[in-house]
């Protein structure tokens, strides 16, 4: 094993004989004059762009104020005929207070088989990217392990607007912690492998619904994680 290591590193060093000895990695210039974000937008316009881009990639987008959320989630699950709903730790209890479906907790001991038998999952997110129509989950409160947003066929993701929305990929990376396991989701699972015809849902959820939850002022404890 270490044998391979020495061999490969020695080859790399020999291959780079043309690189001057004194050159440091930072001496190779990287011009970062590309944009941090594309276009000027108000916070509201950024949220609108997120909604439009999510919809273009066939996520179903809803908007609600805080007090409308329990009713909306109830409706979304009922419309799917969901008998059970997967709930990650830290999801504010009142979000699913009105839901009829049986609640299933995301426990460390649950097997993948058990979780895949659940009809729907409701999660929050860490950040959403407007320019690309992307939701990022980082395993934090209300988001759960990576597998829970993968196995059920129906994922409802709640995004607090405007505070969880950023304009661009560079702004999103700035906010994220690389030590956490991250899942970036842009629209439902899809393939174009058969004659380039787009088909939703090969392995991930076939339906992705996004709830843009309007939060006025600074986020409070009721909506930020713990609930």
């Amino acid at each position, binding site marked *: 094993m270490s044998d391979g290591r020495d061999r490969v590193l020695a080859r790399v060093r020999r*291959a780079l004989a043309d690189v001057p000895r004194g050159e440091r990695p930072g001496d190779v210039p990287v011009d970062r004059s590309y944009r941090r974000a594309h276009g000027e937008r108000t916070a509201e316009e950024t949220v609108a762009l997120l909604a439009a881009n999510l919809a273009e990639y066939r996520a179903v987008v809803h908007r609600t104020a805080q007090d409308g959320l329990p009713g909306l989630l109830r409706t979304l699950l009922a419309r799917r005929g969901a008998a059970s709903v997967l709930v990650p730790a830290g999801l504010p209890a009142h979000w699913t207070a009105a839901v009829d479906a049986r609640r299933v907790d995301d426990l460390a001991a649950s097997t993948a088989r058990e979780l895949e038998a659940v009809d729907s999952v409701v999660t929050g997110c860490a950040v959403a990217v407007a320019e690309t129509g992307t939701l990022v989950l980082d395993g934090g409160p209300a988001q759960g392990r990576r597998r829970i947003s993968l196995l059920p066929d129906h994922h409802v993701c709640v995004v607090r607007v405007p505070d969880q929305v950023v304009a661009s990929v560079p702004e999103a*990376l700035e906010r994220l912690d690389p030590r956490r396991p991250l899942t970036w*989701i842009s629209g439902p699972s899809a393939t174009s492998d058969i004659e380039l015809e787009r088909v939703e849902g090969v392995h991930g959820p076939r339906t992705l619904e996004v709830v843009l939850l309007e939060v006025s002022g600074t986020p409070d404890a009721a909506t930020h994680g713990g609930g």
Partner: protein
Amino acid sequence: MSGTQPGTPAFPEAARDAVRDGTLRGNLRHATRTIRGKRARAVAELDDWAELRAAGKAIKDRTLRHLDHYLVRLERSVTAAGGTVHWAADAAEANRIVTGLVKATGEREVVKVKSMATQEIGLNEALEAEGVRAYETDLAELIVQLGRDRPSHTLVPAIHRNRGEIRDVFAREMAAWGRPAPDGLTDRPADLAEAARLHLREKFLRAGVGISGANFMVAETGTLVVVESEGNGRMCLTLPETLISVVGIEKVVPTWRDLEVFLQLLPRSSTAERMNPYTTMWTGTADGDGPRAFHLVLLDNGRTDTLADEVGRQALRCIRCSACLNVCPVYERAGGHAYGSVYPGPIGAILSPQLRGTGSAVDASLPYASSLCGACTDVCPVAIDFPEVLIHLRERVVQGGEATRNGVRVRLRPAKGHAAERAAMRAARWALDHPAALRAGQRLVSRTRRLHPARLPGPGRAWTDARELPEVPPEPFRDWWRRTRGDAR
């Protein structure tokens, strides 16, 4: 690296067969044109594309020039995050490491995310030989695997199959691999995808070991990144107890922040989307989320030989978006199989002969499998100068010269017995049989000549010196060909 299959025909022969296959040509033309148009629109959305591309190129150049530094850094970060790093100088070593790791888990089957590195080293076959069955889980790879076929495109490997053929493959083969196709399966893409979903879900849920590649590895943090669409990647990366990633050493990027460049360049260049449906990022192992054991196998297999070539080195900047395939007039007609390796199209034409050397007929002919039209360079998100590398490699085939093979500096002799010149002539004849490819080529050869005034005369002269038709040159070759052969096509 594992060489070409014995008896793999040189590019022109393989291409000739492909060109005769009407279905393949039709599928390819439809596919490449569709993606090409969409890509242009996706790129036009970002008014700083030129700056992003320059940054992507520069980050990769910085990485390559200091690759030892970044690999050591990466190893430290991955180890600190609970992963184990292995180093493999060649395909055999990589296969040995992976096979050993799988067998140590006691598992007899693995689920795989599509990965060119594992295809390159022939991992599935190596596992099979040790009694371990590898299931490909990407839909296109599944189609290829069930059809006992070879992938023909980096991004859409089953692009050469139409829906009727896919239906037949599923109906005939699925039962032997696990859950059979549903009775009365139609050829609707949605039904075919559903059949694949059911067939593979069963495998995901019981898999103990997942095997993947990676699109990027971040030296600073030890984070690996896999970009995909279907969710099969997420399944393989998060459900098994053990995850083994086999990744070429050139896939490292220095910092977390660098991902902001590549996550903008890659999806738009590749599938022409603003962002691909799923991206998974993980750093070592995480408590209670995902695999409990993570192994990273860093693969050389000819990459350091490529690195040693100051002109050819830039091929290692490639982020495997496949944009160059979709604009290539030669690829569009010849299809991916003609390139005789897992890397088809323009990138295959410059990467394979560097990874494997130019000893075989196919590898000696690959630098000629191009019309030098430069369309690939225009779309490449990391600005690889294809004409420059192609001409450099042609020179090596024809004239010989210094090169590094398996880490050792060697002097290559001109290809023996006029093999090179035959390869060149056959490739040229092939291009002449395909006027659109040639026209594009001629236009841009002159363009390249302006760009490389010092370069072309060398190899160009060598080619003329070597060829068997000394009476031709005063007249444009194409005109001569048409005059003497008539308008054959």
